[in-house]
C-alpha cells in the first residue's frame, strides 16, 4: 500500500502510475465536457461556429483561472485534488442532462450553459497544477512536466476522436456525460483507496460513492431523462427555439425538411404538410357554394390560410391564434413566409390574438366556413376546445349551409378519441362526416366535417393542388374496419372524455 503522507515511504511506481493515469482521465473528461457543451449549444441554439467558439474560449479562460487559483491551495494538495475530482464528476457528469432539462425551463439558457462551462473549466484548470505539485517529490521536474502534459494532450486526442466517432452516435450526449462523470469519480475513489487505512478520507469516500451511484442511476435512466427533456428528443438540428408564455416553439431543419414543434409535438413537416393542409381546407371550402368569410381557429403558421386564399371569392379570413409569437414568426421569417406563401401578410387576413373559446363566446360575426386546427387534446385546457359547449358556440357563428372541418387526431391510433369529436359535434346539433388522409410524418390522420345543413359532394377544387382531387376526396370518407365508427360519449366541460380517451389510446400506442 502506498503512503503519500510526508515522512511515509512511498512506492512511486504504483502511485505515480495511478496519478499519471488520472492526468489522462482528467484531461479526457475535461475535453468531453467541453465538447458536450459545445455540441449541445449548437444543437439547441443553432449557429455552431459561434457556439463552439464561445464555449472553447470560455472553457480555456476558466481553466486559466483555475490554474491561477491553484496557488491558494497551500497544503493538503491530495485532499483538494480528490475533492475537486469528485466535484468535476458530479458537475461534468450531469452537465448534459442538466442543460437539456433546463433548456426550455429557464428564461436565458446561456446563463446555466456558460455557468457550467466556467465551473468545469475552473475545476479542471485547478487539477493539473495540483497533480504536478503532488508528483513533484516523486519525479524530476523536466520529467514531471513532460509526462503530465503528454498524458494531458493524449487524453485530449482520445476525447476528440472518441466523441464524434463513438460516443455521440452510440451513447448520445446525456449518457456520454454520465459515463465520463463515472470515470472522474472512479479516479477519485481509486486514489482514496490507495491511501493507507489511517489516512483514508472517509467523508470524501462516502461522497464519491454517492456521486458514483447518482451518475450510474443517471446513466441507466438517461432515456427517461431524454423523454422528459423533450428538446433532447428532436432528431434534427434546431434552428429556432422560443418559450413563450403559452407554449414552447421549436423549429428544426435538415436538408429541405423544416419541422415545427409546439410543446414537443410535431405540427408539420415541410415535406408533407401540403397533404395535411389541403385535406383540412379543401373538402370544406369546395362544399360551400360561395365561401366569402372564413374563420381559422389555431393555425398560426398560416399554412391553412395559404390554401384558403386559393379561392378568389374569399374576401376575408379571420385567424384566431393564442400566441402572437407564432403569427409574428410566420409573418417575419423569410423561410417560413416562403412556406406559407406570405399568407399572413395578405390584406384579406385579419389576425386576432385571443383565446379561441373566450373570443367565440363574444363573437357576433358569422362565417361560411370554419377550420378548427387546434393542437391534439393532450391536456384539460386544450380539451375544453373540443367540448359540446365549444361547438355550440361555434354553431352560432355559422351562416346557413356553412361548413366546419375539425382536425381530430389519428382515427387509426385513437379511434375512440377521433369518433368522440364527431359524436360531440352531432350533440351540438350539427351534421357530420368523418374523413382521413395519410400524412407520412403524422401517419393516418383524421378530420371531421360538420355543417348546419346537409353535407354533399365537393364542388370544383382550385388548380395547382398536389394531393387532393375529387377522387381522393371521395375515398377519404371511406373508413376500413380498424378505424370504423364506434359508440363514444359526448365530450363535455365536466367530463373531459376526449382528453381521457386520447391519453389512454395514445399511451398504448407509444408504450
Amino acid at each position, binding site marked *: 500500500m502506498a503512503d503519500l503522507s510526508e515522512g511515509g515511504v512511498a512506492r512511486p511506481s504504483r502511485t505515480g502510475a495511478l496519478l499519471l493515469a488520472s492526468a489522462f482521465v482528467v484531461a479526457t473528461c475535461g475535453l468531453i465536457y467541453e465538447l458536450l457543451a459545445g455540441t449541445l449549444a449548437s444543437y439547441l441554439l443553432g449557429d455552431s461556429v459561434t457556439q463552439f467558439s464561445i464555449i472553447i474560449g470560455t472553457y480555456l479562460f476558466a481553466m486559466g483561472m483555475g490554474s491561477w487559483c491553484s496557488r491558494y491551495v497551500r497544503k493538503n494538495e491530495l485532499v483538494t485534488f480528490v475533492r475537486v475530482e469528485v466535484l468535476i464528476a458530479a458537475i461534468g457528469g450531469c452537465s448534459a442532462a442538466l442543460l437539456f432539462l433546463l433548456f426550455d425551463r429557464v428564461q436565458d439558457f446561456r446563463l446555466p450553459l456558460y455557468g457550467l462551462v466556467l465551473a468545469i473549466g475552473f475545476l479542471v484548470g485547478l487539477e493539473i497544477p495540483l497533480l504536478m505539485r503532488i508528483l513533484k517529490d516523486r519525479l524530476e521536474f523536466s520529467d514531471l512536466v513532460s509526462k503530465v502534459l503528454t498524458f494531458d494532450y493524449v487524453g485530449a486526442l482520445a476525447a476528440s476522436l472518441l466523441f464524434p466517432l463513438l460516443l455521440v452516435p452510440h451513447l448520445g450526449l446525456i449518457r456520454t456525460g454520465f459515463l465520463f462523470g463515472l470515470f472522474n469519480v472512479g479516479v477519485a475513489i481509486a486514489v482514496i483507496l490507495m491511501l493507507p487505512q489511517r489516512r483514508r478520507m472517509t467523508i470524501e469516500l462516502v461522497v464519491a460513492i454517492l456521486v458514483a451511484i447518482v451518475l450510474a442511476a443517471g446513466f441507466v435512466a438517461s432515456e427517461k431523462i431524454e423523454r422528459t427533456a423533450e428538446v433532447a428528443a428532436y432528431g434534427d438540428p434546431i434552428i429556432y427555439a422560443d418559450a413563450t*408564455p*403559452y407554449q414552447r416553439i421549436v423549429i428544426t431543419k435538415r436538408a429541405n425538411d423544416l419541422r415545427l414543434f409546439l410543446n414537443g409535438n410535431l405540427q408539420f413537416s415541410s415535406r408533407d404538410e401540403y397533404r395535411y393542409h389541403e385535406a383540412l381546407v379543401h373538402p370544406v371550402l369546395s362544399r360551400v357554394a360561395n365561401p366569402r368569410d372564413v374563420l381559422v381557429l389555431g393555425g398560426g403558421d398560416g399554412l391553412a390560410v395559404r390554401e384558403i386564399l386559393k379561392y378568389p371569392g374569399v374576401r376575408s379570413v379571420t385567424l384566431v391564434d*393564442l400566441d402572437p409569437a407564432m403569427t409574428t414568426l410566420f409573418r417575419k421569417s423569410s423561410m417560413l413566409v416562403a412556406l406559407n406563401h406570405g399568407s399572413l401578410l395578405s390584406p384579406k387576413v385579419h389576425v386576432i390574438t385571443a383565446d379561441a373559446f373566450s373570443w367565440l363566446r363574444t363573437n357576433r360575426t358569422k362565417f361560411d366556413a370554419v377550420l378548427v386546427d387546434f393542437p391534439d387534446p393532450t391536456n384539460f385546457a386544450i380539451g375544453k376546445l373540443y367540448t359540446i359547449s365549444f361547438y355550440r358556440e361555434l354553431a352560432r357563428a355559422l351562416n346557413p349551409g356553412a361548413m366546419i372541418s375539425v382536425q381530430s387526431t389519428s382515427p387509426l391510433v385513437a379511434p375512440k378519441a377521433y369518433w368522440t369529436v364527431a359524436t360531440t359535434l352531432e350533440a351540438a346539433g350539427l351534421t357530420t362526416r368523418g374523413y382521413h388522409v395519410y400524412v407520412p410524418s403524422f401517419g393516418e390522420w383524421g378530420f371531421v366535417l360538420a355543417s348546419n345543413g346537409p353535407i354533399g359532394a365537393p364542388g370544383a377544387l382550385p388548380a395547382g393542388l398536389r394531393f387532393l382531387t375529387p377522387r381522393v376526396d371521395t375515398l377519404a370518407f371511406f373508413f376500413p374496419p380498424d378505424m370504423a365508427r364506434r359508440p363514444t360519449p359526448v365530450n*363535455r*366541460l*365536466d*367530463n373531459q372524455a376526449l382528453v381521457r380517451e386520447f391519453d389512454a389510446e395514445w399511451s398504448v400506442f407509444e408504450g
Partner: protein
Amino acid sequence: MPTRRTVIAGSIAGAAAIGAGAIALAPHDETIPGTLSGADFRRGHRLRGGNFPEPSETVRTRVAIVGGGVAGLAAAWTLADAGVQDFRLLELEDRTGGNARSGRNDVSAYPLGAHYLPLPNAEAKGVIHLLEQLGIITGWQGDKPVYDSYQLVSDPEERLLYLGKWQEGLVPQKGLSEVDVHDLKAFFAAMKAYEGRRDAQGRPAFAIPMELSSRDPDLLALDKLSFAQWLDQQGWHSSVLRAHVRYACRDDYGTEPDQVSAWAGVHYFASRRGHAANADPDTMLTWPEGNGHLVGRMAARLKDHFDCGRIIHRVARTDKGAQIDALDVASGRGIRVEADAVVLATPHFVSARLTADAPSATGFDYAPWVVAAVTVDRVPAGPGFEVAWDNVSWTSRSLGYVVDTHQSLDRVPRATVLSWYLPLSDLAPADARRELLERPLDYWQDMVRDDLLRTNPDLKGAIRRIDVWRWGHAMIRPVPGYFWDGRREAAAAPRPPLFFAHSDLSGLSLFEEAQYRGIRAAEDTMTHLSIPYRSVLT
C-alpha cells in the same frame, strides 16, 4: 391494525411536526401583503355586553327578517315571489351573504366560505326552483334538469397528493394494504345501500333537506353514536378509510369524526342523488366567487329591502305582532322596528340571545374556520395528475385549496387565487376562537404559506398576497344526538309571529338546508298573515 386512536394520534403528531417545521422554515424578513378580516365579531360581541341606546325612532314593516345569510335571503326571495312588497331585511354586517360571502381582487373573485352547490336532489324543490329562476337550470329532459354547462364544475374536479404524487379523486387508489382495500370497498358499498334506501312512505333514508329524511328507527339510532364509534362497530379500522372519513367530516362539518353524529357522517356520503340531463350525477355547480354567486344574484333583486349595519339586540312578541330593537352602527342611534311577523334567520346561539321565545342555546356548538385567499402568479402544478378544482394533500392539516379560476375557458396560463380552507377541528371550539382573536395576520399567513409550499413547492416565489378570513362560528357542529334528541326540533318550532330560519335548525351547514329553512319560515309567515302564496316546497 391501526385503530381510531392511533390514526388521530398520528395526525396530531403530524400537525405538531408541521408546526415545528413551520417555525424552522419561516423566513422572518419577508412580509406578505394581505388583510386579516372576518365576520365582524366586535359588532357580534356587543350583544354580550348589552347597554344599547333607547330607540329614538320607530319604523313599521309588515315582515321583518333578521339576518341576511342564505336563510334570510331565501325568506326575502320567497316573500318577493309572492308579491309581498312591505318587508325589511336587517343585517348585522355591511353586506349580506353570510357564509356564502365572497371577495374580489384584480386577479379573480374568490369565496370567503362556501364555494359550491352540489346538483340538487329531486326533493330539494326550493333549490331547483331558484336555479330555474336564475337560469342555471336552462330546461328539462324528462325528469332531468339541463344545466348551463359553464356553471357545472369543469373536469378535473379533485386531486389528492398521496405518497408524493397527485392522483385523481380524493380517495387514495395506489399503495393500499389489503385491509384498506377491503374496508374502503365495504364502506362505500354500505353508503351506496343507504343512498338507495327508501322507507315505507317512499322517503329517502338521507334527504336534502334533511327534514324529508326517513324516520326509520334504525336510521335515527345512528344519531346516538359518533361516526368513529359507528365505524368501530362495523369493524372498519383501515387507516386510509379513517383518514378519508376524517377529511369528509372536517370538510362539511368542521368537526372530528369522534365528535360527529354517525347520522351526519352517513348523511355526508349517502344523501347526494342529484342528477342532470347533461352532467354526471355526482357533480356540482361552482363559480369563481363560490356561492357568493348565488347570494349575489339574490341580493341584486332584493337589495332595496336591506338595512345593513344593524345590531339587533332584542326581539319580542307584542299584542299586535313583534318588536325589534336595533342599533344603527353608522349613526349610533337606537331604532325600533314594529312588524306583524319576524323571521329570525340568525344562528341559534344568536336567536337565543335576542328573544326569550327561543329555547336555550345549550348543546349548540359551533366550529371555527380559517379561510385564506392566496393570490399566486401561476396555477399550481406538481408531480402526477394535472391541477384540479379541489386540491387536497393527504398529510396537510388544511383541507387543501380550490383554484378559483378553474371555470375559466382560457388556455392562457396566468395568475389565480387559491381558496385555502382550515377548520380548527383539532382544538376545542372555544380555544380555537381565542386563537382566531389573538393571533396576528402574519401568524396565519405563515401557516398558509408553509402549508401551501409543502403541498406545492412549485409555488415558491409565486405567492403575491394572502388575505385571511376568520370564521368564529362558521357552522353548527352536528354532534351525536343533535339531530333527533329533540333540541333541534324545539329550536325550529315556530312561535308565531316569530319564525325561525337557519341551517342550524337542520344541523347541516349547507346552502340547501339554509334555503329550505328560509323558504319554510317565509311560507309559515305568509300563512300566519293570511297572505296567499304558492308553495315551492310541495
